[in-house]
């Protein structure tokens, strides 16, 4: 007999994720753990393309914690040779690769109760969510921030401009473009930008997460 009311049993990592984020209360800004992430993908189609790599590094109390960083390469089902020249990840490269499911499990474990930061967060999170869906799991529950929107919020000029690329922000905030187009390299660059943005933001306001989240018109609805 089917019990429709019995909650479906999820894998342990997903159960943990839901549990952790259920009643999360964020205290002062300094004690919040942010995870700055970037993904490399075979292309820009949410359905047709796949993630190749997830890179992430944590920030806490205005510090980038290299010891708290994450990098995983994913075995590929879909292969798009056109984007190889951008991210440099070949179908059978030297990196140790894991299955998509294993990569997500590792990532969600690593993510813990952190607030996600990315550049054009919608893209990375959607890629992750679509992958989670393939595992019959729901969308990621974490709060999300986007360096693009934080920048737009505090930028005094170019209010009309909708989208700033990571390269543009690097130029504006004087961040060296090392290791562009590796997931962890871009994550680190994004982390630098996030640090610089929040310090600027902090100048005129007592910084709290609520303000930051308000910069995300399209996320966290």
């Amino acid at each position, binding site marked *: 007999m089917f019990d429709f009311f019995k909650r479906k049993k999820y894998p342990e990592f997903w159960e943990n994720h839901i549990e952790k984020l259920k009643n999360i209360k964020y205290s002062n800004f300094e004690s919040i753990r942010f995870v700055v992430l970037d993904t490399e993908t075979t292309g820009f189609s949410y359905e047709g393309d796949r993630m190749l790599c997830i*890179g992430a*590094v944590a920030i806490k109390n*205005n*510090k*980038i*914690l*290299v*010891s708290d*960083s994450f*990098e995983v390469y994913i075995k590929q089902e879909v292969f798009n040779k056109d984007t190889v020249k951008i991210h440099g990840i070949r179908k059978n490269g030297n*990196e*140790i690769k894991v299955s998509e499911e294993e990569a997500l499990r590792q990532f969600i474990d690593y993510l813990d109760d952190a607030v996600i930061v990315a550049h054009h967060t919608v893209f990375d999170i959607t890629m992750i969510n679509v992958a989670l869906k393939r595992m019959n799991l729901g969308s990621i529950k974490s709060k999300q921030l986007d360096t693009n929107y934080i920048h737009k919020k505090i930028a005094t000029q170019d209010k009309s401009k909708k989208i700033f690329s990571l390269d543009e922000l690097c130029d504006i905030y*004087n961040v*060296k473009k*090392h*290791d562009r187009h*590796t*997931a*962890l*390299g871009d994550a*680190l660059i994004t*982390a*630098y930008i996030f*640090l*610089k943005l929040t*310090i600027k933001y902090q100048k005129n306001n007592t910084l709290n997460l609520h303000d930051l989240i308000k910069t995300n018109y399209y996320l966290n609805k």
Partner: protein
Amino acid sequence: MKNTISERIYDFLKDYPPFNLISKSKLLDIAAKVEIVYFEKDVIIFNQDEAPQEHFYIIYEGAVRLYRFIDDQKYNLDICDEGDIFGLRPLIINEDYTMGAATNEETILYGIPVSIFLEIVDEYPKVSQYLIANFATNTREPFSDKHKGRLFANVSSVQKVENSFAETQSAQYSKNPITCTVDTTIKEASIIMTEKVINSIIIAEDNRPLGIITDKDIRTKIGTGLVSVDKKVTAIMSSPVISFPEKFTVAEAQIAMLKNKLSHICITKDGTDKSELVGILTNQDLNFVQANNPVFLIRDVKHAKDIETLKYIRIKASELTKGYLEQEIPIYFITKVISEINTAITKRIVRLSIKELEEDPPVAYTWLAMGSQGRKEQLLITDQDNALVFENVPESEYASVKAYFLKLSTKVTEKLHIVGFEYCPANIMASNPKWCQSLNEWQTQFKEWIDNPTSDKILLSIIFFDFDYVAGDVELYNQMSDSVFKNVADKQFFLGFLSKSTLLNPAPLGFFKQFLVEQDGENKDQFDIKSRAIRPLVDAARIFSLHHNLKINNTIARFERLMELDPQHRDLFESCAIAFKILLQFRTSQGLANNDTGRFVDINALSKSDRLKLKSCFKPLSNIQEILKIRFNVALLP
């Protein structure tokens, strides 16, 4: 696990001391535990008297100033830039921060947990040595006994391993050696050897060496009657010969000679006796390279009959300098050798010039070297600074005597110029009537300089008080220097003026962040190492020497003597001597590399280790300038 960020951090750290001393795997461990912190301009990183944090910092981007409050007065102690570490000492010895740190511009720091670093310090003695040196230069009292002799450990940690000069130098051998054929008789061969004044002859066929006969063979086999002189050379030759390719080191050749109990080695195209003969190396050639090179040069100077030979010897001496520097022979030794050669050349030129005049000097005279040549610190060919003093003569003879010495001096300076010593642009040369004077005139002049130290006279004092005897009468030289010391002893305030003048060039402490490079002209963006670093040390040594009546001209020797005379500041003088050696070596290598005087340094082109090397020299300079200020009451001078 592969991690792009920690690899990137490793790439950064590995270029900077002390991290360059740590193995790759260990350093990757450290890199993986780094915290990256960003600060805007003028933000405090830590405060003086605060409890230490868990991390110390290396600057990845930007600059940080270290400062200290003493009696509510803020003193900036140092400005650190890319690759500098700070904030480590309190963590290791577990005390509060003795100074504050704030960003001087937008800055990104790598914070390194002290816990993992402590393990490294235990494991790598070189790292702890480096740190001791680093601490020593970052404290207010860098010359405490604890750090004695360690101050420059950071320099040795960035220098390559020392090699013995002789062992790695490539050996010089005689090219196109004399040969004979197998059909030559011993008598014929002996005649050739006698005619050509050689002590060996090679028996060759198609220019391939078959065997060799040396003086020893003729002595032991012919002289004793064992073999007849009419026999063919093959009867007594040593065969096969030991052969070497064209490029080899002295050490290799020495070993081969010892092993085979030989005095001669054939040099062939491919190093076997089956290929074409190109030269012969004798054990005398080796001895020449090893110990006697400068000695030989000086001997050659003494026998030189013309100016071209002297010029050639001076070029050889430059090559010698280069070789010595590459081999990291102590700078004191190099300056000694080169000065000896320069002095010998000048002496010889004076002799040759007198000969040319066909008239002996009418009275006693002394040829004096001034400035760096007088201090025996000349490594590269620089300007000539010289002067002449002659015995006091009755007024009636004065004009003719002076005319003779001016004529002589003109000849000498011309010849020096040909040899490679440029004319002095300020015309401080014995050919200038002002600097070719009688003993009386000199003594009056020195007294006048000391009594009325205006700025132009101070400048002259600085140049002339480093005079040294080169040729002529020693007694005149002694009388001249005695009068200087006597006058200075009477007028201590003169040393105050000298101090004041050298303090116009303060130690370039915030070297890489403050704008200290030359602002315009040909040498824009260049650091003037001579006037900003070397000369102030030379000045300080001179002032203290005058103060202590030291008849020593050489800066290193001055500091070393001062260490004995003034034990209270022993460590300071020692560090100054070391700094001076480093700077002189630095300037000389720069000069040899760029084929100039080495005076201007392009700081952007410096490697980090060279920057650190330079930086470590500025602290002793700044400290000795402080002492000058106090000791000679500079503040009280008009």
